[in-house]
Each structure stands twice: as C-alpha cells, then as structure tokens.
C-alpha cells in the first residue's frame, strides 16, 4: 500500500524510476484514498474516468528510461486541478450552476503544460463559485471540509485543492489566487501554496474572476515540489497577452537574507492571539537562521483590501457578463430574449456571485465610477510603487498568511465583510502583482483540535527564487 500523504513529488518520482511501484499503482493509491476519505472531506467534484489509461501511458514512457524521465518532470504523478481550469472533454463548472453541463472544448494552458510534463490529471476539485469566497462554502456543489477538523472550513476559494493535498488524496494540485485563494486555504490546511508573479503563468483556459489579479499556482507538501510545478506551468503564452518572459523583470539586487516586517500592518485589530504568538516565533526562527529582520513602513498597504473589493467585483461584473444562457451552460426560458438573460442569470448565479456582480456594476456606474473604481486604480498604483520601492532594500516581506486559524463552517456566511477580512494579508500581493507563498508555521490547539497556521513570504516581481530559498531554509528542506 502506497501512502500518498508520506510522499513528495520528488520521492514519488524516485520510486517510479527505481520501479518500486508503477504509475498505475500510484494512481490506484490516490483513488483508494479518495474512496476512503473524500466522502467526509468532499475535496473532489469529479475523478476523471480515464486516469487509469493516463497511468498506463505514463508507465509505458517510464519504461523508455531516463530520457523520457528527464524531459517529463511530472511523469506518472497524479495532480488535481481546481474546477475553474479547463480540461479538454471534461466538465468544468467553476463551482457554479450556471455552467451545469458545460464540457471544456480544449485544455487550459496550465493543464496542457502539466500533461506535457507527464502528469496524470486526476480530477477537478471543489471551489467557491467563480472563486468568490474564502471558505469553499459558496460552491453550488456542497461544502468542502477542513481535514484537520471537519467542522471547519478548508479556506477558499481553492479549498478543494488544498484539502485534497493536505489529506493525502493526491500529491499536488493547482489552484488560482485572485486575492489569496491559494495561500489562505494552504494556511488553513497546513500545506504550501504559491501565487506566482502576475503574468508568470498563463491564464488561458482559466475561467476568469478578475483578470488583472488572477494567477494560477500550485499546492504541495514541500517547497521543492512547489518549485517543480511552478517550473512546469510558467512561461510566456501567445494565448495570454499578459504573460511575461524570464527577462521581463531585471534582477534588482542580490539575495541578502533581508526580511521586512510591516509591523503596523501586522499588529491590527481582529488578530487571533495564537497567530500573533506564532508570528513572533517565526520571526525569531528566521533571525536564528541568519536572516536580518527590518521593521518597514508601508503607509498605503492597509488600503489594499478596499482597493481589492472595488477592482475585483468591477472586473467580475464585466467578466461574468458572458454567462447569458445563449453560448454555453445553463439556459432558462423567459418570454423574450432579455427575459432569458434575467432568468438564466438570476437562477444560475449563487448568492455571492449575484452580490459581487451587482456591487461591481455599481462601482462602475456613471456617477460613482471616479469615486470608487477610479480611486481604487490610483490606490493600486500607489501600493505597487510602495512595494516595489521596498524591494530595493529588502528581499522579502513577512506577515502571517491569515489573521486567524480556520474558522467554523457557517461562522461568516451572514457577514460578507468579516469573510472579506480573512484576505487582509494576502490581497496586497495580488494588487501589486507580486509572487507570494504560504508556508506551514505550526499548529494551535483549538477546542481539542490541532489547527495549522501559515506564514506568508512575498518577494519582488519575478523573484519566486527568493521565496523558494527562504521557504526551504525555514522548513529545513535540503535543496
């Protein structure tokens, strides 16, 4: 019996090459774990019916020996993808009823790159509808549970992917992060979650929430694995004109182990004492590892969440206009064409989607545009400048990933603003397009359950490498 939870991608690849087990056996171990545990956790919306064929194909290539292995860093590795990334010939719903019955006509670029690297696309994972949420409670297809405490949320919106990796159902998974949707669930579930620099990973075939903020990234158990997946999925893509090349960001300074902590921002209201204590320990650990800790002032960073909750709904209201019951997905009959739209969108979108589309319509509407959307864009640029300037004299910014450990299912559903505040530390990296990673930093005993906590490291544009170095140092991973 292979225990998926004990294997990193790196270890599993070694075992596959040494013929200790086959890709077929590895996939079977995933399927068995899903059968055993996923009835409770509900991380997967679908396990694909062709995984065994994909595994056989991988085994055939593994027999070809070293050359295929070197070319394909994920050969034989089962990977799950969030349900907003298209997988050719498979259903894709983005957690919404409005995409009921939709079959993806092509692969998203990220999935295509996974396939080219030899990965087995195992299935699609649950998410908040259109990635709108921080708990995976907004899915039209049921709530995913936190594997550390089934009464609590796994975080969101990529909660299915984080719970699947945390509970050993799959070796790694992809998620998407618009305001923290990879890093926050990674922290809540005790795994690693990376949001790359905006533009490093193609968004082609990713169902859009807010196009200027969305970015695809991996969930893994080790930093080395996050690096492997990132290297596979990154790269310029002619189907996404916002993708950047390796040369886009010049290297501004040599990595000198200098970490900035925005103390004023971290010491805010609503912080759980366990998070504050854990953060102090983390700072001391970095000091003992030879890192210099500097207190930095970022006067505008506290406005990131406000800018985010204007820009994101504005872009969402525009992006989601395409769901009209005409081209694909759900169609509800009305008396005439316009009634069709009202019926389809009224019934197809869930509550949070309706809330954000209407809010987005408001902040873009005549008379309010300058006050909200215009000012939010100005704020976005000021925050970006402020952060870019900071990275002239520091290598990384360190904060907790979340202000609290995982909260209870239902706890924040009736108070949208309190739910939005769960993203306070993750949103700045999206606003400024910076790479950012959540790394497990310990556990806190809450009502008899050990709940994971995470810390967040953010680097300058294009400097994922600094995140990997510091992450490995922190976790004691040998590179």
């Amino acid at each position, binding site marked *: 019996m292979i225990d998926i939870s004990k294997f990193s991608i790196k270890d599993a690849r070694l075992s596959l090459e040494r013929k200790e087990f086959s890709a077929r056996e590895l996939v079977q171990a995933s399927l068995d774990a899903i059968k055993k545990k996923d009835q409770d956790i509900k991380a997967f919306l679908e396990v694909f019916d062709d995984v065994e064929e994909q595994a056989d194909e991988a085994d055939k290539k593994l027999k070809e020996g070293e050359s295929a292995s070197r070319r394909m860093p994920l050969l034989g590795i089962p990977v799950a993808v969030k349900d907003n990334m298209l997988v050719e010939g498979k259903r894709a719903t983005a957690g919404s009823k409005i995409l009921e019955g*939709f*079959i993806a*006509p092509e692969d998203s670029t990220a999935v295509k790159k996974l396939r080219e690297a030899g990965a087995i696309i195992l299935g699609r994972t649950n998410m908040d509808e259109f990635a709108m949420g921080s708990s995976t409670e907004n899915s039209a297809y049921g709530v995913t549970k936190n594997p550390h405490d089934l009464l609590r949320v796994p975080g969101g919106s990529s909660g299915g992917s984080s719970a699947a990796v945390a509970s050993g159902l799959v070796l790694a998974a992809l998620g998407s992060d618009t305001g923290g949707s990879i890093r926050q669930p990674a922290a809540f579930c005790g795994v690693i979650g990376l949001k790359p620099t*905006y533009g490093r990973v193609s968004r082609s075939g990713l169902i859009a929430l807010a196009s*200027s903020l969305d970015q695809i990234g991996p969930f893994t158990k080790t930093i080395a694995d996050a690096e492997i997946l990132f290297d596979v999925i990154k790269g310029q893509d002619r189907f996404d*004109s916002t993708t950047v090349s390796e040369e886009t960001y010049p290297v501004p300074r040599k990595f000198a182990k200098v970490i900035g902590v925005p103390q004023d921002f971290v010491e805010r209201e609503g912080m759980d004492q366990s998070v504050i204590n854990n953060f102090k320990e983390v700072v001391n650990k970095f000091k003992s590892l030879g890192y210099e800790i500097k207190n930095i002032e970022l*006067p*505008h960073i506290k*406005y990131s*969440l*406000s*800018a985010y*909750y*204007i820009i994101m709904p504005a872009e969402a*209201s525009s992006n989601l*206009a395409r769901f*009209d*019951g*005409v*081209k*694909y*997905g*759900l*169609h509800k009959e009305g008396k*005439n*064409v*316009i009634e*069709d*739209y*009202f019926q389809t*969108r*009224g*019934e197809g*979108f869930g*509550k949070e989607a*309706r*809330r954000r*589309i*209407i*809010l987005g*319509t*408001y902040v873009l*509407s005549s008379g309010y545009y300058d*006050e*909200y959307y215009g*000012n*939010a864009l*100005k*704020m976005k*640029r*000021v925050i*970006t*400048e*402020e952060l*870019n300037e900071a990275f002239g004299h520091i290598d990384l910014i360190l904060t907790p990933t979340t202000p609290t450990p995982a909260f209870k299912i239902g706890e924040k559903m009736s108070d*949208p*603003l309190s739910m*939005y505040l769960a993203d306070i530390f993750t949103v700045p990296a999206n606003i400024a*397009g910076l790479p950012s990673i959540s790394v497990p930093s310990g556990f806190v005993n809450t009502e008899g359950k050990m709940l994971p906590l995470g810390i967040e490291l953010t680097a300058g*544009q294009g400097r994922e490498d600094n995140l990997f170095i510091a992450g490995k140092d922190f976790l004691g991973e040998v590179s």
Partner: protein
Amino acid sequence: MDKEKVLKMAILARIKLADEEAESLTGEFNTILNYVGEVNNVSSNSLEKMQKKDTHISANKMREDNNPHESGLYTKKILEEAPLKEGNYIKVKKIL
C-alpha cells in the same frame, strides 16, 4: 445606497432579484461601501510621485492581427455547447 438603486443595478446586470434579497443586499452594500470608501485616502505626495513613473502593470501590449486559424475549424466543438441551435447557428428568440 438604497433598495431602488440595488434593483436598478440588478437590471443593468441582467439579474432577476427578489425583493427581499434586494433589501438584505442594501444593508450589506452600505457596510461594504463604507469600508472600501477609504480608497480616497491616497496621499497627494504619493500620487504625484506615481504620475511621474510608468509601471509595467498599465502598459498595453499590441500584436498584429494576422495568422487566423482555418475558418470553421472549431465551429462544431463550440456549437455543441450552445443550449439552443439551428444548423450552424446559435438560436435566440426574435428581437424585433
């Protein structure tokens, strides 16, 4: 924001909204808008500094409009997803 405004926005967004939902959304929107209104707090000093710089984020990327794929290559695949169709067309109700 009042209920009338919420209902008007819902019409602009083509979303059928029940009266009670408009009611509860009104309260929520006021709380949210009250919070996000702080985006006005950009210091004029920072604004000035910012206007002098051109950041990557707002740069346009252009390409030639050329090399189209062969016409009709994806028609069948894409039409398969349409809820209503007739022949090689997506079907909608009469507009005029």
